[in-house]
């Protein structure tokens, strides 16, 4: 296998980080905490000199009125602004500067919050964005209180402002009274008006202006980004709900069919069967697999063909050593699984072919059950019920749960919609005529089973699901192994979907439901899942943590209930369900990483080869394996 693309992960992680920063910053600026009292410096002004210091703005309504009053009076004042207000009212801020008043910083979100140095950086960034400058005057000095927060009477306010015969006078421009008092003070005889300091604004650097533009954009548009994230989550929730509804519908249909089946049991159907087992380096498991097939209780002939696809570990020898009657071993140079399957199909003498992997264990009744749906001559393929054999350990349990709550439940829903997209390589049966119709197994994709099933459906055959036809398969035991297996499955499924995209325009169930189902639940939902995690993280860290916890818990509860129901439908114990909530932390992320990786691989056009799973032989521990394999 050529090295899979990786660079995009850096982009995705950085992109998510940037997105997270944007919405967090937006949330931060939306909150206005209590003003903070800060230590003020003493500033001496000459006698009968007034420096009018306005706080609380810039305000979109009142600051322009004040500016007009100041202009008419010919007074220059100092505006102690807050960073978030500057970003909210850029044109007012520019007007303050353009009319020659001094701009100073009071805080970022609220007056006095510059004790946190990051707030000072944000406030300066806001100024850099709007004015292209930064200011050295940070925090007001000791001021004479004009009383404009406590009194309305102009005479009182003027008297209070002039009580020390000069100095820095504290006023506010976020209310109507600011302009009135400024006008009255300007008329005070013998007073000179100055700004708090004579400092000129300092030109901001290009990076300061850029950073200011970024923080200002985040403050203004963080809400929109949050809405986008919320929409993505709503779509994901809707999809989840849709799946639950389909599940409920399925339960209803299932109950009805069972009742009908009990009233009129179908006659048992027994056809001779050829079993084809393609195997590549399956020496550890092949004996168990072949023995489990040989131990079948099918009421007709069962021919077994093992096709060794150039194994280097003596797989063919292991199969031959068994010396079981009716078992043929074919050796060929390594050509890939599709070629091995085609060799076996060509050699098969019966009209019904059971295809299974070299790591799968059948129960004695599996072949008999797989054959039953072929009683309907329109059925071209039958999917069995693949189950995880090695369920010990968290990873095994998770996969078992996923097989039941994911793949098998999907298969039941899709069976009801008559568009099963995959008869799994682990356990499936095909009518030879259907295979001939589609020209055998193609090597166009890495998911030859999905490709083949879609082709058979498009050729007009029905694909059935036989839940009772159980087969035990060995699941990967390491996270790396699991990632590789799912990567191949996911990438192969996308290949098959693309190959059969024409089905969307055809009048068959594959296009009407199958491809759309795969698009919605195997592409769109995993793509939206990271956004959901991001949102939960945002909820915990930035927004309302208890609410985030409740939403997350409800979501988890619904999913767990759904998984429990799927287990019940499959006749499984509910005990492993305790491991389900833990899936949310590692397993789910791994699964969407697989989908994203597959999409990037498709975009890159990288040639992936078969990735074999390291076999451990743990299948002898399988619930269905211990009985027959010794």
């Amino acid at each position, binding site marked *: 296998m050529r090295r899979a*693309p990786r*660079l*995009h992960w*850096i*982009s995705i992680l*950085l*992109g998510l*980080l*940037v997105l997270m920063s944007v919405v967090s910053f937006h949330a931060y600026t939306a909150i206005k905490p209590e003003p903070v009292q800060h230590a003020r410096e003493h500033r001496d002004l000459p006698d009968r000199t007034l420096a009018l210091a306005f706080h609380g703005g810039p305000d979109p309504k009142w600051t322009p009125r004040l500016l007009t009053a100041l202009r008419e009076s010919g007074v220059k004042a100092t505006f102690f602004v807050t960073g978030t207000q500057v970003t909210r009212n850029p044109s007012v801020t520019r007007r303050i500067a353009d009319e020659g008043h001094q701009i100073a910083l009071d805080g970022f979100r609220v007056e006095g919050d510059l004790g946190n*140095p*990051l707030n*000072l*950086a*944000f406030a*300066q*960034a806001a100024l850099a964005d709007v004015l292209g400058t*930064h200011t050295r005057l940070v925090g007001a000095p000791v001021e004479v209180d004009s009383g404009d927060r406590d009194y309305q009477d102009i005479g009182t306010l003027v008297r209070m402002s002039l009580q020390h015969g000069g100095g820095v006078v504290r006023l506010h421009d976020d209310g109507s009274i600011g302009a009135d008092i400024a006008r009255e003070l300007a008329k005070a005889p013998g007073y000179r008006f100055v700004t708090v300091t004579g400092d000129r604004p300092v030109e901001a*650097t290009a*990076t*300061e202006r*850029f*950073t200011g533009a*970024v*923080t200002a954009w985040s403050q203004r548009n963080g809400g929109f980004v949050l809405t986008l994230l919320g929409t993505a989550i709503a779509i994901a929730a809707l999809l989840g709900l849709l799946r639950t509804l389909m599940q409920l519908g399925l339960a209803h249909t299932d109950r009805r069919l069972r009742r009908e089946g009990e009233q009129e049991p179908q006659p048992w159907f027994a056809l001779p069967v050829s079993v084809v087992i393609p195997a590549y380096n399956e020496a550890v498991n092949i004996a168990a697999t072949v023995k489990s097939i040989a131990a079948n209780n099918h009421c007709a002939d069962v021919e077994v063909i093992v096709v060794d696809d150039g194994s280097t570990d003596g797989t063919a020898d292991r199969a031959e050593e068994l010396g079981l009657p009716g078992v043929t071993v074919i050796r060929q140079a390594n050509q890939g699984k599709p070629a091995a399957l085609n060799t076996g199909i060509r050699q098969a003498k019966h009209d019904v072919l059971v295809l299974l992997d070299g790591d799968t264990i059948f129960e004695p009744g599996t072949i008999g059950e797989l054959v039953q749906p072929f009683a309907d001559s329109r059925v071209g393929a039958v999917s069995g019920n693949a189950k995880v054999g090695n369920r010990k350990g968290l990873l095994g349990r998770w996969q078992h749960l996923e097989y039941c709550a994911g793949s098998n439940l999907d298969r039941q829903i899709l069976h009801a919609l008559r568009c099963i997209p995959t008869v799994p390589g682990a356990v499936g049966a095909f009518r030879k005529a259907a295979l001939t119709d589609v020209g055998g197994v193609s*090597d*166009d*994709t*890495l998911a030859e089973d999905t490709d083949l099933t879609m082709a058979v459906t498009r050729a007009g055959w029905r694909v059935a699901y036989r839940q009772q036809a159980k087969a035990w398969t060995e699941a990967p035991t390491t996270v790396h192994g699991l990632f590789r297996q799912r990567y191949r499955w996911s990438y192969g499924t*996308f*290949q*098959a979907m*693309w*190959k059969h995209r024409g089905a969307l325009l055809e009048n068959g169930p594959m296009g009407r439901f199958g491809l759309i189902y795969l698009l919605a639940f195997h592409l769109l939902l995993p793509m939206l899942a990271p956004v959901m995690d991001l949102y939960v993280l945002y909820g915990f860290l930035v927004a309302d943590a208890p609410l985030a916890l409740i939403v997350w818990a409800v979501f988890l509860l619904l999913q767990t209930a759904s998984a429990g129901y799927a287990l019940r439908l499959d006749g499984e114990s509910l005990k492993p369900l305790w491991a389900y909530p833990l899936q949310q932390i590692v397993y789910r992320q791994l699964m969407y990483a697989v989908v994203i990786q597959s999409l*990037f*691989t*498709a*975009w*890159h*056009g*990288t*040639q*992936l080869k078969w990735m074999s799973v390291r076999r451990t032989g743990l299948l002898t521990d399988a619930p269905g394996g211990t009985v027959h394999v010794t």
Partner: protein
Amino acid sequence: MQIFVDANGSRRVVARLVSLTVASGLIVFAAVVGGTLLEMW
């Protein structure tokens, strides 16, 4: 030839270039914004 596989590898080169540009762009972006804020801090 498998589905999606690019015979001459040109798509791979383009994809890598795009990934490289986006990744380095984001790194520079984060460094400039983070660095400037730290400086102002």
